[in-house]
Every structure is written in C-alpha cells, then in structure tokens.
C-alpha cells in the first residue's frame, strides 16, 4: 500500500460526506484522517473514487468542517484495530480506542475491521447445547454455541434484563469454562449502557468482558464501525486464542438507521422505507461473523438485540435480520403488560439450530417431542383463547376448554420465571410434561407412545 497522502481541495460537504478533489491513487475503502483548521482530527473512509475525486464519509460528522483549510490525509490502509487478549476487562469507544483511562492496548496483531467471509467449507456445524436456564429458550428455542440468535424487542421491554440473565447463566454443560463476553453498545442511551456496565461489575465478570461503546449522543457514523470492531476482536479471541465468545450487539436498529442516513446522503435509490437495497447484505456482513471453524476450539455466539419500530416484526430491520440469523427470540408487549417475565412470545420465536443441539447425550431424548407438542398445544390454546373471547367459553367443547387451561398454565408455570432463576434442562422438560398432562393423553399426537410411557407424569415411576 502507498503511504500517507494529504489533500486540501474539499469541494463539497453533504451530510456526513466530504467530496475531495485533485486526489490521486486513492483506494476504495481506504481510511482517512480529516484535520480541521482548529487542529481537531476526525476519521473517515473512502466510499467511492471516481478518477481524481474521492467521496469520504466522516465518522464524527461534518459539523464545523469547512471547504477551506481542511486537510484530508489518506492513510493508505483500511480501518484496522489492534487485537489482544488484554482487551478483555477494558472499555473502548466505537472505533476500538480505550476510554477507560487505562493504557493503550499492546497489539498482538492489527486487523481490518471489515473481516473476511468465512469459507463455508471451513466452518464446523454448531451443535453444543448452551443452557441459559431460561425455560422458554432452553426448552423450545435452544441456543447452541456458534449460533446467531437475536432478541426482537420493543421500546420499554426487558430485553436488557433478559440478555444479562442469559450472559450470566449461559453454560455448556460438562465444561467449566465461561464465555468471554464482548459487548457492543450501538447508539444506546447512557442508562442502558450503565445497566450493562453495572451488571458486569456486580457479577465480577468484568475481566472477561470487553465493551465497545457508542452512545446515543455520539456520532452516528461510528455506529457502522462499532459492531465490526467488536467482532474483529471476537474473531481473534475465538480463532487464535481458543475462547468461546458471546457477542451482544445492541441496538441493531440504531445501526440500520445510521446506514440509512449515509445512503440518503449519497442519494442512492432507496429500498423499503428508505433503507438502502443493500441493507440485507450489509447486515449479513455482521451477523455471519458468528460460528465455529474446523480445527479451532473457540467459537462466536452472537446475540444481537433490536427494537422493532412500532413493535412491527415486518419492519425491514427485524425482517431482514430474521432472514439472516438462525432464529429469533421475540418479546411480547402483551405478555409484558400481563406481568410475565420473560415475556417471550414462543410462537413467533425460533431457533433453527435447536435440532442439532438437543436429544440423547446432549439434553434428553424427549426434548424434541416435548417441544413440538408444547408448540402445537400452546398455539391451539392461544387460538381458542381468542375464539372464546368472541363466542364464550361455553361454546367450546370440553377438550377445547382443556386447551385454554393449558395455555394459562403454560404461561404461568413454564414461561414465567425469576430474573435470577436458573433452571436445568431437566427441570424445564419436566415442567413441560407437567403442563402437557393437563391435556387428555390422546391429544399428544406429536409424541411417540414410548416416550409418553416413560416421561408422562401419569406413568412416571411405573415399570
């Protein structure tokens, strides 16, 4: 790569973009340093080069930038961050620079934040069951190591509490080793950040946590870098240092909004709701940085959090996320308002990697069947509940009324649990059987006879 080159002909400033003329041999995606006449320095990167004109996106925004006296230095390399094991226990800004007053990071290596796509032929399939201690997840939407499983939430819903509970309780059974946690705050409010920080401090986990923080009042363009910086460190720790890393990205809605802003400034043809047509590929370049790799001990498990605008799951951000991630945990305002924690809408939730992580030797032989039956029965119960609201319970058959009772008990006993309640998978499955036993046995059409005989409370303890 070429060394540093400096230019001063800024011809246009538009939103977060600078147009610089008279440049030569500027590289696409190259990183730049913008020096204001005041001496203030900002960073940016090249979005487009056309002959001797470069379009530069300024991370900290263009407020106060002038066309005269501004120096733009092209640094001849892509955006890199130093990576090192010592970064655990530290707090960084959204570009990966320490903000905790500690020393500069002694880099073991510097890496391009954009990473590179994992070769599907080099991936290993995720299949190690993670016990989160949360029944709705472990029993019905099982998380496995190396999975990307987002939380779809809404403003005011307890997604932070749930994410923290998962981070605290997550273990792979039979292994003592804990997860290293990388936390990326993407345009979140200060109190949300404080919640996580305090949580990590209190649990004594801080030395296994690295935080990358871009707050709501900080420059929006940095949000495009923050999750990538976090994942760059995660990849290093997982694939070079054999660690199991849990990456929490919150809030991906803020990320997508920053992307929309830059797209609008570039006057691109917008896709749905003004988001750029490449939102899918762009999100994928983040979410796909999870998984396991052949011959490597470590793994990256991703838990992105996003708030659905107007609780609308068809909004482009949750929609495109769901098309990329390996399932989703959907929180429900209705359950939350009824005081149920965690307010997980299990019907809308899904874990696509569940089937590989459960069963004999991993969880229990009845796991898949119990889960299928709980789904089938609960969805019928919920359907009948809305029917009963119209026609009255007495217009339902006897069996249908049992389904109503089942749905209530499912929510009250299986779904609900304490913020500090950590259930084993056996406890979760046994609870599942208990609520299923409310239904007549003939209704358990998803479960093989053999398993009913073995696990149904009615037969338990009998030969």
């Amino acid at each position, binding site marked *: 790569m070429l060394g540093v080159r400096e230019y001063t002909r800024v011809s246009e400033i538009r939103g977060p973009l600078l147009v610089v003329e008279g440049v030569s041999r500027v590289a696409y*995606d190259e990183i730049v340093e913008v020096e204001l006449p005041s001496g203030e320095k900002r960073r940016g990167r090249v979005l487009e080069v056309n002959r001797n004109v470069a379009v530069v996106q300024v991370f900290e925004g263009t407020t106060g930038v002038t066309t005269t006296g501004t120096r733009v230095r092209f640094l001849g390399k*892509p955006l890199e961050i130093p990576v090192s094991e010592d970064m655990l226990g530290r707090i960084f800004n959204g570009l990966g620079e320490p903000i905790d007053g500690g020393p500069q990071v002694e880099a073991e290596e510097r890496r391009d934040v954009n990473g*590179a*796509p994992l070769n599907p032929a080099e991936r290993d399939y995720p299949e190690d069951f993670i016990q989160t201690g949360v029944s709705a997840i472990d029993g019905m939407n099982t998380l496995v190591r190396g999975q990307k499983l987002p939380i779809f939430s809404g403003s005011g819903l307890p997604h932070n509490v749930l994410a923290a509970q998962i981070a605290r309780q997550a273990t792979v059974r039979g292994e003592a080793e804990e997860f290293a946690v990388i936390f990326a705050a993407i345009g979140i409010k200060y109190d949300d950040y404080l919640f996580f920080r305090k949580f990590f401090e209190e649990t004594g986990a801080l030395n296994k946590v690295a935080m990358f923080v871009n707050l709501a009042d900080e420059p929006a363009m940095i949000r495009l870098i923050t999750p990538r910086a976090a994942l760059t460190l995660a990849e290093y720790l997982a694939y070079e240092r054999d660690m199991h890393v849990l990456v929490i990205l919150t809030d991906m809605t803020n990320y997508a909004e920053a992307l929309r802003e830059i797209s609008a400034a570039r006057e691109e043809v917008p896709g749905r709701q003004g988001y750029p047509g490449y939102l899918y590929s762009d999100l994928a370049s983040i979410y796909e940085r999870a998984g396991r790799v052949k011959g490597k001990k470590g793994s990256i498990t991703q838990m992105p959090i996003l708030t659905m605008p107007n609780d609308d799951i068809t909004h482009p951000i949750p929609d495109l996320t769901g098309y990329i991630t390996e399932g989703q945990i959907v929180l429900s305002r209705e359950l939350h308002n009824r005081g149920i924690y965690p307010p997980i809408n299990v019907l809308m939730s899904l874990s696509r990697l569940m*089937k590989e992580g459960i069963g004999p030797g991993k969880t229990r032989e009845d796991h898949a069947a119990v889960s299928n039956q709980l789904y089938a029965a609960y969805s019928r119960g919920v359907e009948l509940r809305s029917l009963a609201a119209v026609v009255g319970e007495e217009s339902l058959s006897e069996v*249908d009324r049992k389904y109503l009772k089942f749905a209530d008990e499912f929510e009250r006993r299986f779904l609900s649990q304490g913020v500090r309640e950590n259930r084993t998978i056996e406890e979760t499955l046994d609870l599942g059987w208990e609520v299923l036993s409310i239904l007549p046995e003939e209704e358990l059409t998803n479960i093989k006879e053999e398993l009913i005989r073995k696990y149904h409370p009615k037969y338990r303890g009998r030969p």
Partner: protein
Amino acid sequence: MPVKGRIVRISGPLVVAEGMRGVQMYEMVRVGHEGLIGEVTRIRGDEAYIQVYESTSGLRPGEPVEGTGAPLSVELGPGLLGRIYDGVQRPLPEIAEAIARTAPHRRMFVERGVNVPALDRERKWTFHPGDPDTGKTLRPGDKVGPGDVLGWVQETSIITHKIMVPPGVRGRLKSIAPEGDYTVTDVIAEVESDGEVREVHMMHRWPVRVPRPYRVKLDPTEPLITGMRIIDTFFPMAKGGTGAIPGGFGTGKTVTLHSLAQWSAARVVIYIGCGERGNEMTEVLIRFPEYKDPWTGKPLMDRTILIANTSNMPVAAREASIYVGITLAEYYRDMGYDVLLVADSTSRWAEALREIAGRLEEMPAEEGYPSYLASRLAEFYERAGRVEALGSPERLGSVTVVGAVSPPGGDFTEPVTSHTKRFIRVFWALDTKLAYSRHYPAINWIISYSAYVDLVEEWWHKNVDPRWRSYRDEAMEVLMREDELQEIVRLVGTESLEERDKLILDTARLIKDGFLKQNAFDPIDAFSPPEKQFKLLQMILDYYKKARELVEKGATVAQIREAVGRLYVEMAKAKFEVPNDRLDQIDELRARVLKALEGLEARLG
C-alpha cells in the same frame, strides 16, 4: 489480443475502466493488480462498467483491467460431483488450501485474488470408449456431432459421466483415445472438419448465460417423487418442471429444499445457496456424505454439487451463481440424467441484480428492481424442462428447477414473488401462521397449486393405486370445506355446528396431524414412500366415509370418537410409528378403525 484498460472509478462492486474499446458485453475481465474476476455489464464509449465478483476494497484508479476474450464460463467435465464451489465456480476447499499455504491462520476466510481451477488438472480418470448404456462405440472415420457419446468415466459411485462431443464440434472422428487413465485436459479425441482438426478433451467450457442446446423440448410426464406427502399427493412436482417456494423468514424454505435435495428421485442435484447462511451450506457439506441416497443407498454427496455464495460473500457473484448452477444442471441433463436444481434464495439473486442496476444508475421499476427483472426470471426458469438431448445414442434428460423466494415482510404481492408466479407451474406457498404453530411443512393448502396433477395421475394409478386421484380430491375437498367452516366457527364456536360439519373439522384435523404435518428430522417420517402416502390417506378417508355414513344415520361425532377411542391417535401417529417397510400395519389399523365403527353401527341398530 485481449483488451487492456485502467480503472477510473470504484463504487462498491462496480468498477469503471477506460481504454476498454473492443471489449465484449459480458466478457470476463481481470481487475487490478490482484486480477480480481469481473464481468462487463455495460459499455459506453471506451469505458466498460464491470461487476466485480470479489471485494473491491483497496482498489485504486489507475490499476489495470485486462480482458480475457471470453464471457464468464464454467468448466464442464468429470470431477464436479461432490464439490462445493463459490458463485463463479471456484472450489472452496482449494481456496482454503491456497490461502493456508501463505497465511495458515487465515485459512478459514475466503480472501480475494485466489485463482484455482474448478476441475482438478492433475487427477486421472479412467476413460472407457463407447456409450455406457448401449455399448455403441465410435470409430475413426465416423461422422460425429455435438452430444455424441465418445466414452464414459465412472465419476462417482452413482453417476457414470458421459464424455460427449461438445456443442459446436462437428466432423469426422480422426482419433479416439483407447481405454486408459487421462486428466481432464488430455486429448481424448480429434475431430476433423474442412481440413481443420479440433481436439476434444474430457473437459470443455461453456458460457453460463447461454442455455446449452438440445434437440427438442418435451412435456413433463412423470412425477418427481420427493417423499413429502403434501407435495407428492397434493401439489406434485414433475421431472422437468418448475416450482417456487415463497415464504417469510423461518417458514421452512431451506428445510424443504434440503429435503428435496436429500430425498427426491433425481439422479443429480445442484444446490445453490444464493445469499443465504454459511452454516446451511456447511450442514449439507457435513451431512450429505454421511446420508445415503434413498434410491441407490450410496452417499448422497455422490450425486450433489453445491454452489455457495453466502450472504456475506460478494454480491456480484450472487448474480452469477444462479447461471453457474443451471449450466451445470444442463450439462448432466445432456448426459440423459434427471437433474434437480434448487436455488435458495432467488430473492437474493434479484436483490443482487437490483444493487448492481442501482450502481449503474439505471432507471428503477417496482421497488427499485430493474425493469428487466421479469425477463431475467423468465429466462432462468425457461432453462428447466425435459428434453431430448443432442447426439447419439438418443437420450432424454430433464432439469427440474425449484426456487425459494424470500418476500419482504412475507408479502407475496412484492415484485419477485409476483413475477416468479408467472413463470412457474408449481407454487408451494409457505404460511407464517402455520409455521408459528409448528405445522411443518408450513405449505398452505388453500393457496398452493400444481399444474402437474393431471399429468402425474397416470403414474400414480399405474404404480401405486388406481383410486389415488379420487382419494386425493376427496381429501382436498374436506380441507377446503374446513376452511369455510372455520369462518363460521369464528362467529359461533364449534358446539353449535351440525354433526356433519363437526365431522369435517374432526377429519380435517386428522388429515393435518396424520398426513400433512411431516417432520423433516424424524428418522421415519422424513421420507414417506408413495405407497405409504396412499395408505395413510386411504385410512383417514375410509374412516371419514364410514363415519359420515353413521352421522347420516344419527350418530354424533362424540359417539364416533368414543367408538374409535385410541385408534384415532394411532391414525394420527401412524406416519411416524409405522416403519416404511411395514405398511401392512396401516392396512391393519384401517381395518380395526372400520371394525370399531361397524360396532357402533350395530349398536345404533
């Protein structure tokens, strides 16, 4: 003389180069010092607009661009089966090896600028002259033309790879290699025409955007049996047919396509992962070599080729991956095989098209898609079909195409879904509500359709049971009627319905639980042979018909359910409790059900 120019502009996957006069539209070019692969998509004056199939990060104006003189092509020859390629047919395991040679710790990443040929140049294959089926052997002096079978190679345990005279080569056979071991680039034959001698190798190249020639296209006649009940019985696919499977996220497109790739009665399967998850390709790659092809008992991977452009890989290669895949499919069709191509997801391909069109500043039509979206879709699905191949001996082959569609927000009125519908004959519509209640496969039986029902009827009647069509139609009627009744139930509940209608609800539930729902991960239920499909349906409908008789005689549904007792749930579970080689158990269960009902009949007097 290849064209040589230099880069003037870089914007994402789009590069503009000047000094490109003489370059052809869709010519493959090498971009920059690293020689990245690109394709010319527009020419203006001496400027060429190039979509680059690798990351353009770090490219600079002034770097060289070189033409290759040929359009983007694939390599065709023995050694394709069992492989995984990227969107422009680079073998992914070899890319990892190549990277590992210089940077061992980065072998898991796909880095750019790695050039590895699709077909192994070192590997030797045993070439046998003559046609493997008829034994017909060509001799020097014989007149030969495209598609004539020169010989064969045992490519995998299942597939005999026919070495054919490539399209465009015609004349007198001057020489043909004797039986022996050859690489794909060794000369296997020479063909002389007008004094000019053309060498024929086991490998040749074909431009991906040009359909391979055939003699005639024929109507499909046979079903492509998939082992999925709702598909084979209600919405059948035909060999050489086209289908789409649209659905919101998590509704079961990928699982269905995996099942098709795993179980269907195709001889060769091309699986294109187009802008989807890396782990889904890995899953196929890890599992298929372990799984057995249900029709031959050999490893599934021996009939499979994977094309992977995952969602985080360069978007331009996504656009190309579909064409790479269908060209491979046509090649095996030309040998006389029934090929199944599945593409997951065609929406990502369309979005790649949209992104590139946007960078070219083309006028967008609906939702930003270029105006030629529909014609591109049509061209793609037109490459499916059952054909009589070129050359001799005569042979029939087919390409069946099934594309997943991922509509934003699950809305089927969006452009990709609605245009696709115009060009396909089978529509398996996935329903988010069914998926939420874990009714899998979540194929909605009210809005799905297949244009091949009449056409496959004969096959079923000949091979399974002559009553197939009447049972199928009657079951469909029950389901339709139930759908109407649900409207009423929503207003008044179930208790006030007439017994007749209650029976419809009861039976529809049995059809859903005992027939339509099918767990792709259950060792027994994942594949349902046609005989089993028929017997299950027959059992449920015979129960229904007998029960209807009793209801007409005054029995209530409650009485009927009481009379059959646990047999009802046994009927619902027969699909996974009855092993596929013990279908007599279904007949026996059916007999017990009917007997229980006769008992009731006797008691009613």
